[in-house]
Structures are given as C-alpha cells and as structure tokens.
C-alpha cells in the first residue's frame, strides 16, 4: 500500500544522504518534496502541515547539523515523526472485561465493515481462542444480514439472526442477552454503513452504543479514502467514543495517506489492517514497523512472527535433520518449501517486509513470480511418489507425461529439475558445515552483518 509514498520519500532522502553539509536551504527543499509526497499520498492537508512543521523544527536543530552523517540524522527525524504521527506501538484489543466483551463496528458505506467483522471474529477465535458471536444491525442494505450469516459459518462464529424489519436497537438488546446466556466471550456487532452528515443515522448508532456499552468501538476506514478522511473521522469520533481504527483494502496500491490522517485527527490507534479478500487477511498494525517500511528499512519483526505462526515446526525440523545429514532432500521437500512460502503470504508479502531491497518490484512482476511458483508445485504434483524421491529416473517419456499432466512444457520440467539439482548440491554443502565456512568467509566483507 505504501509503495508510492515509500518510493518518493526514498528518492528525496537519498539525495539528502549525499549532501556533505546540510543547510537550512537544502532541508527546506527536501521538506517541500516530502510535503508533495504526503499530499500525493492523500494525507490530509492539515496533517501534512503539522508533520512538516514538526520535522522542520527538529531537523534544523543542532542535532542534525552537528551530526557526522546529517542525511542519516534527518531520516531519523522523519522516522520518529512518522512513528509519533501513527502512534508509538501496536495497540491490542482490550477485551478483558466481564464477558461478553462487546465490539461495535462503525463506518461509511463500502468501507468494509462486514468483511472486517468476519476477519476479526476469525482472528479472535484462532489466535486468542475466544468464543465469538456475530450479529448484524444492518437492516437497510439488501442481503447484508445474510452476508454476515454466511461469513459467520465460514469462520466458525456463532450467529445471532436478525430480520430487516426489526429495529437495530431491538436487535442489539436481544443479541446482548443471547450472548450472556450462551456465555460467549465476545459479541461483535456489525452495523449499517452511514454517512457522517446523516443526522438520524448517526443518532441511531449513538443509541446502539449506549445500549451495548461496547468495550471496543472500532471505526472502519477504506485506505483509499482521500482528503475527506479527516471530516468523516472527526464526526464519527465526536459522535462515538471510538477506541480504535481498522484500515481496510491495504493490499491495493493506494498510498495509504488515510492511515496518517485518521490517526492524527482522532488520536485513536489503528489496531488492524485488512490485507486481502480472504477472512484470514487481517494483521495487527505496528506503527513503528510501518514507518520502517515506508522508509525502506524493512519489517523483519513482522516477518519473523509470521514465520513462527505459519511454518509447520515439525516439518521444519524434519527438513533440518535431512539437511544436516547432507542427503535425502527430495522433490517432496522442495514442494513443502514452496507451499510454506505460499502460506506466509507469497512472495509479495515477504518482499514487502524484507530490509535492504532497494524498491519493491511492481505488483505484476510479483504476480508473475507467484504464478511461477504455482507452476512448480503443479509440476511436482504431476509426478509419481517414486519420481519425487528419485528425480534421476525422470527421462524423456516421463518428462512428457509430467508436462502434459501439469499443463506445462517439457522445458519447464527441465528447468525445475535443474533448479532442484542446484539446490540439492547447495544443501549438501550446508550439511557438511559449509554454512559456517561460507559465513566465515563473508565475515568482515559485509558491513553491518552480525556475524
């Protein structure tokens, strides 16, 4: 989501990095560029102004000018200002109340409330082992209740049925009662999308809030929102005691300025990001990591956490044993590796978080890579177990069969086998202590590496 903003800021800051001496002039020039970058990214104008003033006062100060690496010092100032703007650290949901803990969802039409409701339910069920009940108070949009019902059954949440001819307040009361009776840990209440200028509808959600007395009231915002984010966030924040924000559709190429604006205007933390179409595509929001990502410094922490969560530990250990023995790495293992990567969100998601990559390749290139990966898996799937264990037996007619079975060409099969052989050779080297040797050889030559 932040690629464009990142690119723009990186160019600007790189130019600064090259300056031997920083003067007020070249800082002002850089800040003008930063201002344009933020505006192009749809950060709201008042927010941009505050941000620039903040950075300027710090950048022109002593710290930077006397620093040995003034460019780096400015980057540090921008980084700190970004983190300060977005909040210091991840804010979790506070659900530690007498159950049921009620979560109320609010937002404009089409911002992604219903989808986020389902994603949040899945998150709480799978990662925090809560029992979750969902209810829809959207009696206006056709089939909105049915949509939530389907999603509830997909993610394994209880669903409290409601009807379009009921009053949202009555639905809320009944759902709350039912959640108590069935001893649910969490009750998430989805509501109809509403415009902040629609007084009766804003009154309706205020009433819901006072009936439900939710422990979390989350404002759902489309990350593609423009300057208007400021207006809507302000009104919702004044009408409801918001406790946090969910930023949706961040897997597009919107520059994500809304994230900065909403945080600044409401003072409420962004708690989650919606990062895809499926119900597991919800990530906790980490402002300090995101600031790193914007400035191209990578987000290794998120990557490690993701790996721990998704990688099958048993399989990983099995593989480690095979590698340390220096043999037995076969095509089955290769396929496991590919699938593992897929599970971690594919190449795009990995690249995005990797430090030191000069610039995230564009979406199309990445999707080519993903396609390539899927093709490799398809080829391996078209082999017999014997072929996977002993790829050497794959000759002419077997190759043709595999290619036909996986919808590829014989050349593709050849390429896979060659890649695999190279990998196997590498694995053998690692197994014989080659890894340590390799790293020792590199020591001292790579600056900044911790070995």
């Amino acid at each position, binding site marked *: 989501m932040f690629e464009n903003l990142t690119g723009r800021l990186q160019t600007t800051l790189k130019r600064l990095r090259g300056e031997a001496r920083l003067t007020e002039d070249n800082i002002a020039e850089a800040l003008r560029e930063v201002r*344009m970058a933020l*505006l*192009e*990214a*749809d950060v*709201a*104008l008042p927010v941009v102004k505050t941000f620039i003033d903040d950075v300027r006062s710090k950048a022109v100060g002593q710290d930077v000018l006397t620093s040995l690496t003034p460019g780096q010092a400015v980057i540090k100032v921008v980084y700190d200002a970004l983190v300060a703007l977005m909040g210091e650290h991840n804010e979790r949901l506070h659900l530690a109340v007498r159950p049921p803990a009620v979560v109320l969802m609010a937002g*404009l*039409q*089409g*911002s*992604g409330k219903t*989808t986020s409701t389902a994603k949040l339910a899945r998150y709480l069920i799978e990662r925090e082992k809560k029992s979750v009940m969902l209810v829809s108070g959207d009696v*206006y*949009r*056709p*089939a*909105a209740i*049915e*949509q939530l*019902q*389907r*999603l509830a059954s*997909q993610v394994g949440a209880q669903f409290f049925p409601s009807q379009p001819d009921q009053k949202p307040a009555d639905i809320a009361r009944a759902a709350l009662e039912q959640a108590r009776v069935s001893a649910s840990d969490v009750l998430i209440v989805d509501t*109809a999308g*509403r*415009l*902040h*200028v*629609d*007084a*009766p*509808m*804003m009154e*309706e959600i205020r009433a819901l809030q006072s009936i439900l007395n939710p422990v979390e009231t989350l404002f759902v915002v*489309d990350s*593609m*929102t*423009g*300057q*208007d984010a400021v*207006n*809507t966030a302000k009104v919702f924040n004044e009408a409801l005691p918001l406790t946090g924000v969910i930023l949706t*559709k961040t*897997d*597009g*190429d*919107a*520059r994500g*300025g*809304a994230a900065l604006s909403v945080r600044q205007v409401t003072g409420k933390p962004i708690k989650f990001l919606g990062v895809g*179409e499926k119900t597991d595509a919800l990530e906790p929001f980490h402002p300090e990591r995101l600031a790193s990502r914007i400035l191209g410094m990578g987000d290794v922490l998120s990557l490690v956490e993701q790996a721990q969560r998704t990688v099958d530990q048993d399989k990983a250990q099995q593989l480690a044993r095979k590698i340390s023995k220096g043999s037995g790495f076969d095509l089955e293992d290769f396929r496991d590796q590919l699938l593992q990567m897929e599970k971690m969100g594919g190449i795009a998601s990995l690249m995005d978080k990797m430090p030191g990559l000069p610039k995230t390749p564009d*979406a*199309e290139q990445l*999707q080519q890579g993903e396609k390539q990966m899927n093709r490799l898996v398809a080829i391996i799937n078209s082999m017999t177990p014997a072929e996977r264990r002993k790829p050497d037996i794959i000759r002419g007619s077997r190759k043709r069969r595999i290619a036909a079975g996986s919808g590829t060409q014989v050349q593709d099969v050849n390429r896979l086998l060659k890649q695999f052989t190279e990998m196997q050779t590498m694995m053998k080297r690692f197994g014989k202590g080659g890894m340590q040797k390799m790293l020792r050889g590199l020591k001292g030559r790579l600056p900044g590496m911790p070995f």
Partner: protein
Amino acid sequence: MTSPGSAPQSTGLFGRLSDRLSATRRALAQGFNELIGAGQPDAAVLEDLEATLLQADVGIDATARILETVKQSSGSAGTRAALRQALLDLIRPCQQPLAIDAAHRPYVIMVVGVNGAGKTTTIGKLASRLKTEGHKVMLAAADTFRAAAVEQLKVWGSRNDVPVIAQQTGADAAAVAHDALQAAQARAADVLIVDTAGRLHTQSGLMDELKKIQRVLQKLDATAPHEVLLVLDAGIGQNALAQLEHFHAAVGVTGLALTKLDGTARGGVVFAMAAKRPVPIRFIGVGEGIDDLRVFDAVEFVEALLPNGD
C-alpha cells in the same frame, strides 16, 4: 435504499443536486470566497487556493492547470469567472450521457469497480431508471465471490420487477454472464446489466477474470459489452486515477459512475480524472433513494460547487 436518514428534499433536479452537493460547495466555496476578492491574486492567495483545491481531492496536476488559468486572469470578476471557466473546461468533455443504442439488442452494460464502490446499489438504481424509460431490463449476478452478493442483487431485481439471472455463490462468473446474455437474447430484452465482483485493480488474476467475462460475452455478441461502466467512490483520493487506468487497460472503460457524492467535500477527484483521461461521466450518485442516480451535467456540477451568487 430505505435509509430513514435522508436529507430534506427540495424539488427539481438542480435544486436536489445542489442540495446534496451543498456540503462540498460549502467547503470549496468557503475557501474560494475568502480568496476571490478584488484585484490580482497574489502569491499567498494562490497558495491558499492550491490548498483548497488539494483538500477537495482535485489532485496536483489538475490543481496546477486550474491555478495557471487563474494566474493569467485579471480583475475581481475575472478571477472568479476564470476559475469557474477552468473547472468547466476540464470536465465539460466528460459530459456524455449514456445512450442505449437500439441497434444493439440487448444492450450489454458491464459494471466493474473495486470492493465497496457501490456497484450493486448503482445497478439497482440504474435498472429502475432504464425501466422507467421504457426499456426491458435484465440483470446478471456475476458477483459469485462475495457472500450474499447474489441475494443482494435479487432484492434489487424484485424491487424493480426485473428478472435476475443467477447461479449459486462460487459459480464461474463468466458462465453466469454467458447464461444471462443467452437468456436476454431469448427473451428479447433491451438491456442486460452485468454485476461483477468487486476487485482491487492490482490483482491481475482477478482482472484476468474480468477479461474472461468480456470474452465470453463476445462469443454471443461480438460487439458486447456495449458499455463498461466503472463505479468509483467519490470519497476516494488520487487512487481513483490508478483504478481508472488499470480497469481501462483490462476491459476498456467507456463510462464512469461516481457514487456517494452526498457526503462532505467530495467530487474534486472528477477534475483530476478529467485532466488525465477524459472518460465520459455517465451518472453521479447523490443519495440512498432509488431515484438518487443523476445524469452527470458539467455546468450543474460546477454550479453546485461554486455558485454564481454568494
């Protein structure tokens, strides 16, 4: 739709539009009125004007163009008039209403856009409008991805009393479109509106699916779809430009519908889009009611943003 919270309604098309856009107008006009006093605009005024336009999501390119024109103007009346003229010049080429060509029957309208833009709601309103105009309308529920999207379209179908061709959720979208066009041909419908699933324009796999729907429609009618209507949420910022470019590259956008213009400070993105790629703007959505889909009118639009009087 049936939201109880509609704004007070005034009669007449312009009155209504002006009403709905009043929030935008206030925000824009407030800035302008402070600025457009007597005499030549000075640097500070231009800077504030730039801020005002940027805050309305007009975008950097269009803002620069507009400011250039204003700079060249002289006199107090001149500045205001020049500003209106510049805004008008930008979007007048986009004023091309949708005309159902009787030579193509059924006239196929494929509706595309990102998630939550308002595609299905727009289709509901559009079906009502076309039916009132005397066309025999059918709907195709080719959003087979989102839960209950088919049901949502069916509700609109029964409200308007128009048939909806649908399969179950998870079915192949192109197959639904194909069936629907076959049915529309068999029943001699005048218009077939194809609803598609919301998709982010950066998902090339999903964009390919959209191309497939188009290809399959062309098997039955080489000239279909006759209109590819991109639905855009007017509340979005500069990403509207990227959406237009990507959808255009995939399926050739022939018209736009701008939804949710009844909020605050919205609609400036129209100028940004017009400056880059003047695609006809067919409709604007100015409310939740079934008749709140309006034909886009450039003069009226600028008028509503920047009234002559005040």
